[in-house]
């Protein structure tokens, strides 16, 4: 359900499905083995993004990891708005690819 590559402290992930607890667990398993300072995650295929995903991003953000969320679906913004966290990330940017 996801592909990832790691190069020079950057972890790049392309999700093939949802960004929720099962995916978060897989990402956390990678992070146990790898120190990173940048995360690029393409979530364009996700129909579900839940609070577990937001928790993970928030924790990495507080650990000063530079986060790029590619192609966030509608639900990503919606969840951040509900949790009042939209403008609370220090190191997160979102990019919509054409």
């Amino acid at each position, binding site marked *: *359900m996801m592909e990832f590559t790691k190069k020079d402290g950057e972890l790049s992930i392309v999700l093939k*499905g*949802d960004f*929720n*607890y*099962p995916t978060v*667990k897989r990402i956390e398993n990678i992070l146990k083995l790898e120190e990173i300072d940048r995360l690029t995650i393409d979530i364009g295929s996700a*129909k*579900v*993004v*839940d*609070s*577990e995903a*937001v*928790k993970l991003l*928030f*924790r990495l953000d*507080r650990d000063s990891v530079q986060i790029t969320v590619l192609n966030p*679906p*509608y*639900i990503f913004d*919606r*969840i951040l708005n*509900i*949790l*009042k*966290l939209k403008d*609370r990330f220090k190191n997160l940017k979102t990019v919509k690819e054409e």
Partner: protein
Amino acid sequence: MEISLKLPNQVGVIQPSVDFVYSWGLEHGLSEKEASELATAFDELITDVVLFAFGDNEGEFSVMLKDTLSQLEITVHELGEPFDPNRHKYSVEKVLSEGNFDGSGFEVIKNLVDHFIYIYKGKAGKEYRIIKEIKHPHITQLFTQEELAVEPEKAVSYQIAPVSEEDAEDIARLIYRAYGYTYPKEDMYYPDRIVKALKEGKKFGVIVRTDRGEAVGYFAVIMSTDSNIGEVGEVVVSPKHRGKGIMKMMMKALIDMAKARGLEGLFGEAVTVHTISQRVNAKFGFKSTALVLGFFPYIEYKGFEHKQQRISVVIDFLPLKERKVVSAYLPEDYRKILKEIYANMGIELKNIPVRKELKLAEKSNISLQINYRFETAVVVVRDYGEDFESRIDKNIQALEEKGMKGIYIDLPLDEAFTKKAVPILKKKGFVFSGLMPLFHQERDFLRMQKIYEDLDFDGINVFSDMAVKIKKLIQKEMGK
């Protein structure tokens, strides 16, 4: 249709069940965004159940998906450790200062669905319900006001035919033309919902057209989902075509169709703003069996001056299969009135005495039907258990917290404990409503009711002698 799933508390079940809910949402008329919201709410709920409901133990939980014409409801039921979501309030300040996301999942759920309800059932576990409304186009979005206002002129003759999916738009236009926005069954303003109901066999009916093909009358029976009976629930005759015998023609056809389909009975929920529907029902042999107070919110009925209060309905019942004698456990307080109600339907009622001490199962079998738009709930007691009173208390508490305006409890008359249940409910402020014949699984139920808004009984107009008697008894019990 209802779909039930039993799932183990394993992380592996989250993704496939979330995928299923997403597809189910799309299939039942949600947009991609709405299906995504429903699937995310469901994901939050079952992730919480899988991770926390059973501690470190293995467990199972059930998921029930139910679609109606206007909404999708998912019920998750589990027997895990006690937990109260109301004690886990999300706070963004806690997130920012401590990284504490406690309550975030429930915050997400509440915001992504139209209704979220939690019921703690004691030994019977915990139940969560999430509901998403389906947004179909309203008839006023499909036609201009000018188009909707066109009233068919007088006709030389009328033709009656069974209703089909192609008639949906004409029916919605007819309802709008005759009632404006005041028809209580909102689904009738949405052609998509009419099509869906017909396609899924949820209703059948007739349509009357002029010799020019214009629709001027419609009458349908809505099938009960819980019993082999139907409600004569949707009726309209175009204003200029009233008094021509169209109503009579349609009712006769419907009764014949219902008999041909093997239904055991038909019932009507006749409003008490006026007595016209009650009179029509009486004319066709329907007998009044109950008065349900404040069953739906106030709406203004065109052409009638009436009190601004919630609308009460008389239940009128027409048996389609003969029952000569019924034996039932009759609660002392209502023995007389129940005998009269049955006798009025031509049925002799025999009381079954209870001689031995009653032995109950550990758990009751109780189901809950909530009408979020009407702000009412029907609690159906199918079997009694030792936890009856505590289950009822928990249901009432959850429904009151949700701001329900009317709670109705149906008690089975073929269960001995009903004799004891009545005084228990009376102590909790419930009063008589009446008999609900064959209402659930073809069994007869006694309905008790509790209303949370003040009602002026002078604004509740009843027609039949039996309805008058029922109303008097209710007034007496309520001290009105």
